[in-house]
């Protein structure tokens, strides 16, 4: 969901180099020589066809791509996107026929609704059994029959607070604490429509996927009420501002937590940043692999997805991406300390009231956007 800040810059350079590399070797396959000059792969990449992969920037350990090519002989053409919204029109228009794509929950639902996805053949994905049933069950919110998607990463949205600025007895437990006057000028909110409304709707006890105009209006008024207390509405900057001690409390994606904990330790800061999953429930997001309907190499794509589900590979990717993995096999391979890191792998019980974002259709989206504008203009 939320990429790391440097992803943007890195993605550009990476994409450029990968596309170049991709061009180079696809040229080789066209010649029929299969003579790869850029790596000493044992199975010549391309000898078993190709797979076109479209993934988030910074969302895979690159070594995994090489390993896949080596083991299967399938050549990987790897491209990256920054947002779901950027990815969607490319798949829809069929501008390039991607075989495996990794969108988020609500976007997968939109793609299913608009008939853009192919049903997966799970016989070709034996490692699917490694995925924790908990996340397969949660995926039903956007993929009701679990026919189209294989979970790749997941996480929550919660409250991050600075232990030196928040007294232990004031430690936040729920979204309502973001309306506490004690934190006036010390609150960082997410600057995106659905995330901001999720906070207010959950604080009110409503569903974060509500389509009810009255409930939304109440949430809007609550956000307007909160605005004087808010220091700033930010997206990726929450992480750096919180590390820098700019604010006491902020709304953040759990995927950032490992980085934050490492950074706080590296900088030798005299405070720590704690992550809380609000008791009212929050957004559980899942990014999953899907295969578009217009894919040319469906079986190769299934091999790709299966490879990513292999526990050792999933572990490599987790260590690189640091977003929680739904892969039970990979989880079992991790150090105990990481397994017990509640910010990354929260207890299932704390996710009781959580929901997954659903695509609500254009009209409801418009309603959210209009109300968000009202909040921002106050």
């Amino acid at each position: 969901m939320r990429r790391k800040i440097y992803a943007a810059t890195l993605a550009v350079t990476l994409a450029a180099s990968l596309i170049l590399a991709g061009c180079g070797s696809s040229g080789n396959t066209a010649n029929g020589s299969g003579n790869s000059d850029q790596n000493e792969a044992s199975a010549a990449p391309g000898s078993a066809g190709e797979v076109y992969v479209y993934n988030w920037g910074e969302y895979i350990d690159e070594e995994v791509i090489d390993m896949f090519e080596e083991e299967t002989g399938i050549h990987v053409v790897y491209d990256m996107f920054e947002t779901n919204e950027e990815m969607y029109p490319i798949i829809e228009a069929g501008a390039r026929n991607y075989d495996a794509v990794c969108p988020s929950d609500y976007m997968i639902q939109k793609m299913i609704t608009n008939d853009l996805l192919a049903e997966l053949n799970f016989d070709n994905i034996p490692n699917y059994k490694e995925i924790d049933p908990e996340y397969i069950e949660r995926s039903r919110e956007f993929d009701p029959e679990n026919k189209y998607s294989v979970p790749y990463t997941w996480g929550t949205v919660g409250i991050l607070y600075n232990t030196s600025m928040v007294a232990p007895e004031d430690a936040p437990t729920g979204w309502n604490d973001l309306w506490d006057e004690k934190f006036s000028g010390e609150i960082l909110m997410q600057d995106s429509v659905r995330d901001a409304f999720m906070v207010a709707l959950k604080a009110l006890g409503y569903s974060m996927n509500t389509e009810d105009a009255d409930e939304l209006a109440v949430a809007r008024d609550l956000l307007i009420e909160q605005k004087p207390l808010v220091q700033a509405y930010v997206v990726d900057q929450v992480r750096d501002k919180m590390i820098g001690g700019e604010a006491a409390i902020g709304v953040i994606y759990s995927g950032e937590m490992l980085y934050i904990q490492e950074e706080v330790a590296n900088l030798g800061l005299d405070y720590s940043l704690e992550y809380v999953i609000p008791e009212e429930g929050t957004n559980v997001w899942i990014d999953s692999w899907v295969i578009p309907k217009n894919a040319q190499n469906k079986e190769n794509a299934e091999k790709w997805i299966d490879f990513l589900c292999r526990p050792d590979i999933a572990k490599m990717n987790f260590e690189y991406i640091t977003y929680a993995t739904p892969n039970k096999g990979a989880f079992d391979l991790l150090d105990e300390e990481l397994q017990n890191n509640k910010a990354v792998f929260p207890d299932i019980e704390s996710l009781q009231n959580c929901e997954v974002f659903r695509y609500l259709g254009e009209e409801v989206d418009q309603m959210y956007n209009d109300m968000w504008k009202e909040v921002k203009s106050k």
Partner: protein
Amino acid sequence: MSRKLLAGPYLIWVIGFTVIPLLMIVYYGLTASSGAFTLANIAAIAQPEHAKALWLALLLSLISTVVCLLLAFPLAMILRSRGVGKGSFVVFLFILPMWMNFLLRTLAWQTLLEKNGVINGILGFLHLPKIAIINTPAAIVLGMVYNFLPFMVLPLYNVLSKIDDNTINAARDLGANFFQTLVWVWIPLSVPGIISGITMVFVPALTTFVISNLLGGSKILLIGNVIEQEFTKSGNWNLGSGLSLVLMVFILISMMLVEKYDKNGEGTAF
């Protein structure tokens, strides 16, 4: 004939990258998402949140323009008095930061102004009271003034350096004091530069969304932010275009002002 041929590439450039995009904005602005003709996107400026955003943008960019003018005029006079060589070196110093990316410079201001930022660090070290202007309209005005000041200095310096010393000396010989010379000689002769500078500061300040996002903490919605949001987040290109057309009215007004007062293009910056 050969002259016309030479104009070809520029013609293609202007048509491809100015005229056609502009026509597309007009088309989007005057149609609903279904493609039917409508004025609703234009009329939407009257909605309270849009009207407020426009009003705020006008106010902040007006303040910035006035501040820029007050800072730039004395500076341009000083530059002129230092003669061509030294003066143009100082002008060069003013242009120098513009070689760096606009976004980076604005981000730098964020780091400077933050609660635990550089400025507050220095103030704290000196046991002085800290400033708290980040995420306020004042920070936005500061960002506008910093980013657009060169656009005011350059045209002013340009017109002032063309004023003949004899004109000034004549005024002084005839008994005018400094203030009278300023009001009756300096300012009237620099009107083209002033108008050009005002336009070059006011128009980008009015339409900015980056400065208000970065220095205003996204808490202060300017009309530029509304338009940006319609294009990038809400996906409502029609409304975004409609509001852009409304903004264009203000830009046209300022261009007409330039046309009226700066007929010979004396005040152009470069």
